[in-house]
């Protein structure tokens, strides 16, 4: 193996192992700004936990007015806090929108730093099969960007193939970069 081989980036490999079966984000382009907007289904998914958590917590607070029900109040309150906190942790990334700003010449996903739009070389589409112990296997698709320094950053990751292809095309046009399709047949 020479020095160049050790620096090779496998563009066929997906960045993330899992991903949702449903459409989680859509690309929205407004003038010089392109951003990823979470879908209602993705937000509802997180909201289930928050609603259940708040409901249990509310029930626990109500029970505190009955002195003989403190044990149940603590039990429900504990569950409520745990489930609600989980929901908050899930929804947090959705509230921080990833955006491509031509005016600032930057890509901001609140995670990867110093990504200039001019440094983006191409966009790539990858596919994978997500296998779960709790459900049937399903296909999931990634839209990743590649910078001239070899960094690969995930932009989209969901199971709606048609929407992802459409968003990839739109984003490629917006950024004036090539969209490379690395989808392959996966045999389990």
């Amino acid at each position, binding site marked *: 193996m020479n020095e160049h081989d050790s620096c090779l980036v496998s563009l066929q490999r997906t960045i993330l192992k*899992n*991903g*949702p*079966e*449903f459409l*989680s984000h859509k690309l929205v382009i407004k003038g010089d700004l392109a951003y990823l907007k979470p879908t209602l289904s*993705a937000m509802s*998914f*997180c909201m*289930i*936990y928050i*609603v*259940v958590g708040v*409901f*249990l917590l509310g*029930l626990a607070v109500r029970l505190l007015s009955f002195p003989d*029900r403190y*044990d*149940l109040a603590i*039990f429900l309150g504990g569950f409520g806090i745990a*489930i609600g906190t*989980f929901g908050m942790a*899930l929804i947090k990334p959705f509230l921080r929108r990833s955006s491509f700003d031509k005016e600032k010449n930057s890509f901001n996903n609140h995670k990867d730093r110093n990504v200039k739009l001019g440094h983006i070389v191409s966009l790539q589409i990858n596919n994978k099969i*997500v*296998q*779960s*112990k*709790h*459900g*049937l296997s*399903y296909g*999931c698709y990634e839209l990743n960007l590649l910078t001239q320094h070899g960094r690969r950053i995930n932009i989209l990751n*969901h*199971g709606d193939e048609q929407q992802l292809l459409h968003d990839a095309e739109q984003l490629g046009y917006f950024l004036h970069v090539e969209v490379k399709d690395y989808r392959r047949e996966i045999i*389990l």
Partner: protein
Amino acid sequence: MTCILAALGAGNMFQANQAHAMLSYAFDVPSEFGVITGLVLAALVFSVIVGGMPSIASVTEKIVPWMAALYVGMALIVIISNIGQVGAAFGAIIEGAFTGAGVAGGFIGALIQGLKRATFSNEAGVGSAAIAHSAVKTKEPITEGLVSLLEPFVDTVVICTMTALVITIAGLNVGPYDGSGLTGVTLTAASFTETAGIFKYLLALAVVLFAFSTMISWSYYGLKSWTYLFGEGKGPELAFKLLFCLFVVIGATIQFGAVIDFSDAALFAMSIFNIVGLYLLMPVVKKELHSFIARVKSGEIKAYKK
């Protein structure tokens, strides 16, 4: 079809029913509030089986083994603190098995009841666990069979024996068994509580988590069977998921007797077809097992040590 019914019965309604029964026992929650337990569980189950996002199931998966350890620990405390009664408890269990004490139908009645509860507990011969094992990617399928042999042992020989000892030592298993007296999880909880009052709270936590994780596993078995019958696709899959969640609410609100009868019937129907299949496939399994053992002995398959 039988697997779908078993998923809705044993893997769903029974779990929701017992989770609420446990809450009723531990915290004196009225049975009419079962609908709240059902709705909360249904919402959480739906969030998990809808697919793809990080879910509460992954958290539960990490907690449940600790809950199992907690259960075993509590059972050991009860048994050790009543060590003098263990011999008599074993005697009562064996005597009850042959005389059918407390069970209609004498010896045969006890045998049938024992088989029903054992099947419910360890699922051996039902064919449900095989669905999960079949999803494992392996070059040697026989190893999955060998691993699965351990499940009835741990479940029935270790856990159920410990539970039986706790119940027999407490001496609360006096019926009636139609749901009006101590039965199912409430009998177990009451028996544990005889030794320490705090056990009912710990058991409530463990039972809710066990019930939830069991529902998730059975939803997968049910969904597999459903898609086999009605085909894969978003529509049929969503229909099953919604139906499954609806049965969680139903299970938490109806009487124990109805739930257990439905669950027993569904598991029995499932095991009939599965056992016929097992019998027909026996020569293949035998051949695979002999081949595997021969290759392990010859060194073709190496055993790795840490």
